[in-house]
């Protein structure tokens, strides 16, 4: 059987009952008109769908569009062709993490991976780990702002000092290994 | 006669207004599907007497498809709903006889759905081919006719049918 095209690959990631839901796109731009982050994206969500359907794999993976998706799901509920656009953005994030291909300088992929690793280690998330993991790789100004805020929160008793853990961590890790065998290693 | 590969024979009852026209359209559009299905035109899916299905299977068909207009689009207003209800009862009976679910299928196809009808036919042929021959006539000659089977039903299900006092 022939290798699936890029658009088919993305379509398959959407777990739709039948066919590729992206094929239904009429390029109306409702998603992009709705998107709160559209102006910061290199391609609007509509253009990204167009690029996927045109099998422009490199352009799509090099784009920052899906990393700018804030998961607000507004596009999904408004899409006149019933395409789950936010889910498509998730699918592209997963695809790009698996393939280790993404635009340079983006914080999103590292953030997602670190976040997940934290949870896989402890069962819960821990804000300070988040901060140190990404903000070092971003600008100094942001780091200072973030640190100032963290201090403020700490003073108000809202910043945890010790990382939280769930109790049945061993069971939890074994459970994870059932789903993704590699996860336990990290 | 065909030892090497089993090719099922399937009978399809197509309603005159939607599904027969869907078949017309599949033809006009040259959409290919497997040759195993032989069609009978009826005016409406509501015309399909469950006896026709039983008869087809007893004559040696390996599967039966009933195709009609989509719910809400029946040219006789609502007769396909009646076909749907009748189909549910028929399925129940066939289950009792041990006929696999995939062998009898109710398919909606509008006059514009040539592709969908062809896909449904291919899907059904594949599934029935995987199941193998039904061999009802042979089974019947072993066990007597359907009537006898029906008469035996209460016996076989005596336990299930027993009503606690």
């Amino acid at each position, binding site marked *: 059987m022939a290798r699936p095209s890029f658009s088919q690959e993305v379509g398959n990631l959407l777990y739709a009952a039948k066919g590729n839901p992206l094929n239904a796109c009429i390029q*109306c731009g409702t998603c992009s*008109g709705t998107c709160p982050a559209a102006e910061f994206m290199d391609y609007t969500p509509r253009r990204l769908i167009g690029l996927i359907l045109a099998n422009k794999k490199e352009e799509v993976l090099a784009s920052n569009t899906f990393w700018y998706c804030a998961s607000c799901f507004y596009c999904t509920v408004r899409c006149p062709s019933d395409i789950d656009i936010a889910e498509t953005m998730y699918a592209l994030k997963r695809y790009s993490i698996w393939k280790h291909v993404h635009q340079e300088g983006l914080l999103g992929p590292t953030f997602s991976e670190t976040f997940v690793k934290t949870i896989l280690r402890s069962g819960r998330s821990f804000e300070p780990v988040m901060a140190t993991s990404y903000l070092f790789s971003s600008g100094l100004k942001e780091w200072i702002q973030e640190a100032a805020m963290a201090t403020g929160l700490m003073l108000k008793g809202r910043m945890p000092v010790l990382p939280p853990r769930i109790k049945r961590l061993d069971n939890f890790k074994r459970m994870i290994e059932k789903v993704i065998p590699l996860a336990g290693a990290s | 006669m065909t030892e090497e590969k089993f090719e099922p024979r399937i009978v399809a009852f197509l309603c005159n207004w939607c599904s027969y026209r869907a078949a017309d359209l599949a033809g006009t559009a040259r959409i290919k599907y497997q040759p195993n299905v032989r069609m009978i035109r009826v005016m409406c899916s509501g*015309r399909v007497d*469950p006896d026709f299905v039983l008869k087809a299977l007893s004559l040696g068909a390996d599967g039966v498809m009933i195709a009609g207009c989509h719910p809400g689009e029946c040219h*006789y207003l609502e007769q396909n709903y009646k076909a749907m209800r009748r189909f549910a009862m028929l399925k129940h009976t066939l289950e009792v006889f041990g006929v696999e679910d995939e062998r009898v299928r109710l398919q909606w196809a509008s006059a514009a759905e040539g592709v969908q009808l062809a896909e449904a036919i291919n899907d059904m042929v594949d599934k029935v081919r995987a199941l193998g021959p039904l061999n009802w006539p042979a089974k019947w000659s072993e066990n007597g006719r*359907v009537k006898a089977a029906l008469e035996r039903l209460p016996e076989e299900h005596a336990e299930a049918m027993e009503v606690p006092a």
Partner: protein
Amino acid sequence: MSEKVGVYICHCGSNIAGVVDVEEVAKWAGENLDNVAVSRDYKFMCSSLGQELIEDDIKNEGLTRVVVAACSPHLHEKTFRRACSNGGLNPYLCQMTSIREQVSWVIEDKEAATEKAKAMISGAVRRVQLHEELQPTEVPVNPHTLIVGGGIAGIQAALELADAGYPVYLVEREPSIGGHMAQFDKTFPTLDCAACILTPKMSDVGNHPNITLMTYSEVEDISGFVGNFDVRIKKKARYVDEDTCTGCGICIEKCPKKIVDDVFEVGMGLRKAIYRPFPQAVPNFPVIDTENCTYFERGKCKACEIFCPTEAIDFEQQDTYVDVKAGNVILATGYDLFDVKRMPQYGHGRLANVFTSLEFERMCNASGPTEGKIVLRDGVTQPESVAIVHCVGSRDENYNTYCSSICCMGALKFGHLVMEKTGAEVYSCYIDMRTYHKGYEEFYNRLLEEGMHFIRGKVAEVTDAARIEEEEGKLIVQVEDTLLGIQRRVPVDMVILMAALEPRADAREVGLQFGIACSMEGWFTERHPKLDPVATMTDGIFIAGAAQGPKDIPATVAQGAAAAARVQGMVTIGTVKIEPVVATINEEKCSGCRICNTLCPFNAIEFKEEEQVSFINTALCKGCGTCVAACPAQAISGAHYSNGQILAELEGLLYDVVASNGSHAAQAEPEAVPA
């Protein structure tokens, strides 16, 4: 005596012969199938030579049955039935089987195709031997026509028929005829005023000796069948005596109660409690709106009665019922406008200066609430910029998937009117510009030249939440300009929503009442989408205008005229043939269980109380056969689709397996069905 069957296999050029080995099949059929007297293959069976072949064989070979294996019976069944007829054989003794659409065009493997063709022919040969001679029944056609709906479709149909000399009953739900068109200002693409072209037709209807106009009326009940419908019409009480009222309008002038007109003025203007929807209403008798009339509310006032010069006001009037007979019915019930409040992101009702397309029509109309001035909701301020939102509720899986087809042109018309009357900047936000009829694309070009701005993108939302100074106090239309690939926020003073056309809210009930089907969306279903657009599956019921699907005025008028032409044909001939494919009940076998009674959606099955048996009115029966399949006593038989015929076809289709399992190789025994 056994039948003599003729089998004819068409090559259809190479369409069939290129895949199916037609010669082999013809030879096989002649040698292997019982009672086949003649078996031939021919280049084009549907040609006159092909038909003559059948005619000659009937005459010379004494054929009693004919099977034609060719294209779909939907194409040529009539042709071959005629050939049989010409040869002296009852046309219903012919059976077609489709070896083109169902065999040669869909199967690549030649051997498999030939096998399937054999099976199909075998089925047809078995079946045709059990065919019976049938005769279509003839019934007279009442010359009166009932037209439901007095919009432009109904008006056109009524005038066509009436002018040709045929009597018409025109029934309209509202107090006046005119429909949506009466609400419009200009009509695209010529920009002639709707009233100027509509009102002469309306008064023609009002004055026509052949038209009985019943407004403020509804069809209460209809029974009967093609040529012979019995109709009961409810005339709602107007509280104004139509015989004495002169339509002078003094009552309206004197009525002290003003209310918002939600129907004709779509909430944009006021009317009195006694009113006519608009000045040119036909008929011009007013009606009293009892829900808002002071007299009906509080028992006093009667200003209208006091001032009426002809004593036409009658507070005691009751609804009345009129029974009429009609041979045919034309349904021209029109459309509803999509409720734009279902899309709160566009802000209608929340943001004052968001208007629907119909509200804007009224605003443009010189006799409308603003006397034709284009102003904001405050009634005085002219907009400096206007955005027009296309596809509101159309082309959207969340609402209606279809294209409403008139909105693009409507938007262009609005753009022109706005620019002409106010000089404002106009932005049209569209997904695809659809201008497909005569003069439409030229109109689009004209608007481009006039400087209307076009943004290709479906509007995401309309908001008043400003981000920057230019947006303060404005409506901001947020949309992706898909041709530029950027999100735009366009600040405007006014927004017009091009609302979708939807089927009438009660379309399904009306469909059931008249025995016709609706599409999934609720549009009335035509007999054939291309070749029979105004007839329906129910003989004698025709459809016209937007009730069948969204359409503009020219298409609506064309359908009104087409429906009238179809009716004229029926009335002129004076009788109608009814297909003999109907069910009948053998009263000897009927146990009176009444299972079939409730199954028939056409109410063709009656129960005879005295005899305790059911009976089928063959004139009402459409031949679906559902009752035949349901009768537990097998007392119902369906002509041309009898159990025997279908089972014989089944056995023929499975001839190869039947032969191999021996015990069932016998001739069809229709009664021996396992049950």
